[in-house]
């Protein structure tokens, strides 16, 4: 943290959207923090986006509404935006810029960390391979989350992704180890009621004690959303790599983040890319997603579950599309299942955890996990085909084995996929349910599981 003060400039050349152009600036640095003082003495924060030719373009986080060219002053603070971090941040609620929102004083900082983080040296990265139990069967069983992974949830507007996000935040744990576990939850541009739900949900379950909440609500200036994931990740990195904790970062909704980025890009008159998003959307998203991982020789880990709502449920939209390039798999929330009242309505056939294979099996979950998971995928896929066929020829036209697969599909959705929002299933329970589904098939249909596992776990009904 720098202790030297900054110079205040009073020549404002232009105010455009969320940007303020300051004239006659002699020394300013890229990303430097700026305090904007209005004519009424109100202070707002911003940061330098561009500097040169005696001008500095400042992005004002709290918006430029009410600012005027005359009377507005810009103080260049002489440092980048920093987040005060210490173990004391656990159990606290902050706004989108990292200021306390729970009526308590600022945390006494152990240190002040640049919110832009330091890129992880690829050489120092350790391959993620340890299981995180979310207590949600479909995730633990079929798209297992691994410590250090970035696994996004692709959802659509109005669907139950926020319930799922809160459930994961409440229930997630490292099984069988005494390692410290923490959750950093960043709500980006969510409704007030949703923000309150997240806070209450963590408070009432007792999980707030090991969590840090950053709440940027929909009525907060859109520009603050650029900062929220970064302050959240800064805290997560501190907890992980300084204090050795395993940290799960849940960020919802990244679509609101990308839209804030588009707003700034438009104000800067940059050439728009697909759907008006800036051409550097991929690069920008990667600066957030790549802050997940484990480091050699360090105890902790940062695992990310970013949640994004796909406009018009379009998975080819630039936000899910580019996110998919960076992250290690995806969990897709399905509209059809949601309409049927299934919770969590996860479409497993479109979902995948690329690191699952390294985080499951003997020593992590159970030695039959991989095989039973493949068999369940296969059976559900076949059930979907049979359902489509039944739609054409009717149930009477189906063979006996087809009917068994239909039964498997129904059991999968009703007993395995469907789960109460406060139901925390252990991995053993999840695997038990998977075997219950597999056991609905005759033995000769079980082609993906070794005989020794079939003998041990198969229970014909």
């Amino acid at each position, binding site marked *: 943290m720098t*202790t030297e003060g900054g*110079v*205040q400039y*009073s020549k404002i050349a232009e105010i455009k959207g969320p940007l303020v152009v300051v004239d006659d600036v002699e020394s300013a640095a890229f990303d430097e923090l700026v305090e904007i003082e209005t004519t009424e003495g109100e202070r707002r924060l911003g940061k330098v986006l561009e500097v040169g030719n005696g001008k500095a373009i400042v992005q004002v986080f709290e918006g430029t509404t009410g600012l005027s060219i005359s009377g507005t002053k810009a103080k260049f603070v002489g440092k980048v935006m920093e987040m005060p971090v210490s173990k004391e941040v656990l159990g606290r609620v902050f706004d989108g810029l990292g200021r306390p929102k729970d009526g*308590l*004083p*600022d945390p006494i900082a152990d240190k002040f960390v640049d919110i832009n983080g330091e890129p992880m040296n690829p050489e120092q990265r350790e391959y993620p391979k340890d299981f995180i139990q979310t207590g949600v069967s479909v995730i633990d069983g079929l798209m297992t989350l691994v410590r250090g992974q970035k696994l996004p949830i692709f959802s659509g507007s109005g669907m139950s992704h926020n319930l799922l996000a809160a459930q994961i935040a409440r229930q997630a744990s490292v099984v069988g180890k005494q390692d410290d576990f923490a959750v950093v939850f960043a709500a980006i541009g969510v409704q007030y009621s949703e923000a309150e739900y997240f806070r209450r949900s963590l408070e009432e*379950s*007792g999980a707030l*004690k090991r969590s840090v909440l950053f709440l940027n609500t929909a009525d907060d200036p859109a520009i603050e959303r650029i900062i929220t994931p970064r302050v959240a990740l800064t805290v997560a990195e501190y907890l992980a790599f300084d204090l050795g904790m395993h940290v799960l970062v849940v960020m919802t909704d990244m679509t609101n983040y990308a839209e804030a980025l588009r707003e700034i890009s438009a104000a800067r008159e940059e050439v728009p890319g697909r759907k008006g998003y800036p051409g550097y959307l991929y690069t920008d998203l990667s600066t957030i997603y790549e802050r997940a991982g484990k480091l050699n020789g360090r105890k902790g880990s940062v695992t990310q579950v970013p949640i994004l709502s796909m406009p018009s449920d379009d998975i080819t939209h630039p936000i899910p599309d580019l996110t998919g390039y960076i992250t290690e798999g995806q969990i897709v929330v399905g509209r059809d299942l949601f309409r049927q009242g299934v919770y969590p309505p996860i479409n497993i056939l479109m979902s995948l955890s690329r690191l699952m294979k390294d985080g499951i099996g003997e020593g992590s979950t159970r030695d039959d996990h991989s095989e039973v998971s493949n068999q369940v995928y296969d059976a559900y896929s076949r059930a979907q085909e049979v359902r489509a066929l039944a739609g054409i020829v009717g149930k009477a036209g189906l063979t006996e084995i087809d009917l068994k697969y239909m039964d498997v599909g129904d059991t999968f959705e009703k007993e395995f996929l469907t789960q109460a929002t406060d139901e925390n299933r252990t991995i053993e329970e999840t695997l038990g349910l998977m075997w219950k589904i597999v056991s609905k098939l005759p033995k000769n249909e079980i082609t993906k599981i070794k005989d020794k596992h079939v003998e041990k776990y198969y229970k014909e009904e």
Partner: protein
Amino acid sequence: MDKSHPLTNLALEQTIDKILNQTQKDIESSIDSALNDTNQTLDDAIPKLDKEYDKIIADGKKEADKIEKQIIGGADIEARNKQLMALEASVDKVFTKALDQITNNDRSGDYANLIKSLLDESTRILGTSEVIVTANSKDRDVVQSALSGFPGSELSPDTIECIGGVIIKSKDGAMTFDNTLDARIERLKPLIRKDIAAKFGVNN
């Protein structure tokens, strides 16, 4: 009255006895079979019952763990919040006392050197000594004498409300640098709070 043949009566009795015996045997066999069935059903039910029992116990344990977490988590947070508020109140007290001491400090001796170093720092940051300096009424004399070392600078006739230090403005009014003690304390407050908290034994 016609009397039946004694042999006829005997045969009837024998038949009745036979039927009774047979019926008794059938009933006994049925009872035995029912008993066996019942025992079998009970035997079959025991593992199921054990499973149900285990499930109920496991569910109960899960629920108890959940409630325990809720209660302990809530209590921990409440206790921690009270501790934070108490600490903050103590830190504030220290701040108030320190500010009082600085405000009432003697303006002679080292204070003149402090003003000079504040002016040095400010003109260096603004990049010019062509500046207008503003101070509080108490410091005007000290500042005025220090300004002799800064050619082109002048003391503003206006005064400011602060505990000490100076505000420096370039003569064209475009740049201002606030180097009052208040601004410096505000800037360093997070670090000072940490030091004070450490004195109270709060170790991060």
